[in-house]
């Protein structure tokens, strides 16, 4: 699904969402109010400049105080890899964007991520993974690193990795594996109207961070929830 198709599905009455240099900002009438949209389109890498454009838009929404939901649409590359970006503090800019989204969530704005293309590494963490609930469309392809690169780093043969990837969701790229770890809450049905599915997500928003519970249930992160619970339990003793 393309961004245009997504926007058309969400905003049958039209919208003000624009895409500039791969950066998505704007909004439109949704349900009984407004839906803010920010994000990255066209497999664009996210650098310092883009991160601040998006965080500006998020903070504007928070300052407006309308508690309107914020949709984070993502089809990005990884973080922009360059000397300039690191020199200027890419870690601060990406973290700032994530913090802005987390602040919005705390301030009463439901935050929903929608990944419909690629995303990876720092760009993924600062956008889609910083929302309360992350949905995906079929064909979405989030990854930390592609398998050939994993092969290079781990010095394992690619065919062996491909074989392992079938049974081990914890390291392999792809949407199914991200669903299994609990990072992606739900895969939407492209055959059904998108606006209704997003509205349902907003309505059924769960408090807190339930990604480790999902990861345990789905088998993609078998031990994380138990470990963090054990830490909490031991911390609570004496």
């Amino acid at each position, binding site marked *: 699904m393309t961004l245009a198709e997504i926007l058309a599905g969400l905003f049958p009455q039209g919208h003000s969402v624009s895409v500039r240099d791969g950066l998505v900002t704007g909004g439109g009438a949704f349900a009984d109010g407004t839906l803010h949209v920010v994000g990255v389109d066209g497999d664009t890498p996210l650098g*310092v400049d883009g991160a*601040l454009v998006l*965080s500006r838009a998020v*903070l504007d929404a*928070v*300052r407006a105080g309308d508690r309107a939901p914020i949709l984070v649409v993502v089809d990005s590359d990884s*973080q922009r*890899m*360059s*000397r*300039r*970006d*690191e*020199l200027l*503090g*890419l*870690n*601060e*800019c*990406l*973290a*700032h964007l*994530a*913090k*802005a989204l*987390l*602040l919005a969530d*705390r301030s009463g704005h439901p935050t929903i991520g929608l990944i419909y293309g690629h995303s990876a*590494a*720092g760009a*993924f*963490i600062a956008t889609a*993974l*910083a929302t309360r609930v992350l949905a995906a469309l079929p064909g979405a392809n989030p990854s*930390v*690193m592609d398998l050939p690169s*994993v092969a290079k*780093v*781990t010095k394992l043969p690619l065919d062996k990795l491909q074989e*392992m990837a079938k049974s*081990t969701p*914890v*390291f392999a790229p792809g949407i199914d*594996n*991200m669903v299994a*770890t609990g990072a992606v809450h739900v895969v939407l049905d492209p055959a059904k109207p998108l606006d209704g599915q997003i509205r349902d997500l907003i309505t059924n928003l769960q408090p807190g*961070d339930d*990604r*480790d519970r999902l990861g345990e249930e789905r088998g*993609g*992160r*078998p*031990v*994380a929830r138990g*470990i*963090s619970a*054990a*830490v909490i339990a031991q*911390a*609570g003793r004496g």
Partner: protein
Amino acid sequence: MAGAHAASTDPDALSWYEATARQRVVALADPGSFREFLPPTERRMSPHLPLFDLPRAFDDGIVVGRAKLDGKTVLVAAQEGRFMGGAFGEIHGAKLVGLLRAALTLKPAAALILFDTGGVRLQEANAGETAIAETMRAIVDVRAAGIPVIGLIGGRAGCYGGGGLIAGTCSRLAVSEGGRISVSGPEVIETNKGAEEFDSRDRALVWRTMGGKHRRLIGGADAFCADSVSAFREAALDLIGRAPAFDLATLEAEQARLESRLARFGDCRDATDVWARLGVNDPDAVPAMDTRAFDETVARVREADHDAR
């Protein structure tokens, strides 16, 4: 369960860069006060590394627990940069997430994260990446509850990848000269964009671009420490006392701070250009400065200190 020798646990003598995670925690805390959660005797080891025929660590490369710092209770997490580059695996990440969530009920004086990480552990990439996202959310919750989250960065693996993003989420950061904070590592940039973009073997360039001094000068870190555990302890105590709130005002200020940084330095090619524009008299002399000379330089740079984080 300390390091091996009495000499090695003397906080004045112990090099942060050289110490293990466990040595750092023990020497950082008030003597005898550290209590570890999920200690090595519980053998909470990675269920995934055996698939890759890789050795595991009893603590999965992170030490978490409770300690006293100047008599006040703090929660501490310390990554072991020498085990798999301090990278986030499933258990490693979950221990940090659990510790931060525990802070919400325990209400310690602060949570300290002793970063030493290359980012996500590739063999457990999806779990590591998700844990980083969970960690950032947990930090925000802890900060919003009025508990400072302080990052200490000076280990041999630096603070890279998702670790850099987590660091950017903390209330305050202390960094030493050896510490590096960055998202993409030098080798990653070179591999993807070529040696003309970034020559990873030029270590002086690496440190100029990502190292502790540059981060401190541009306000990417709030304190600069000598490479000893006692210096980090002093910095941590100081930073706990002046942590910014987590609210709209802080983030608006950070937005303005970062936008102004891009506007002022966006066309700089090298860190020395940035330092010159910051008003540093002799930018080329910065890398060789000792801690005191550097502190004096920082004191004259307006951008270095702020509450916009």
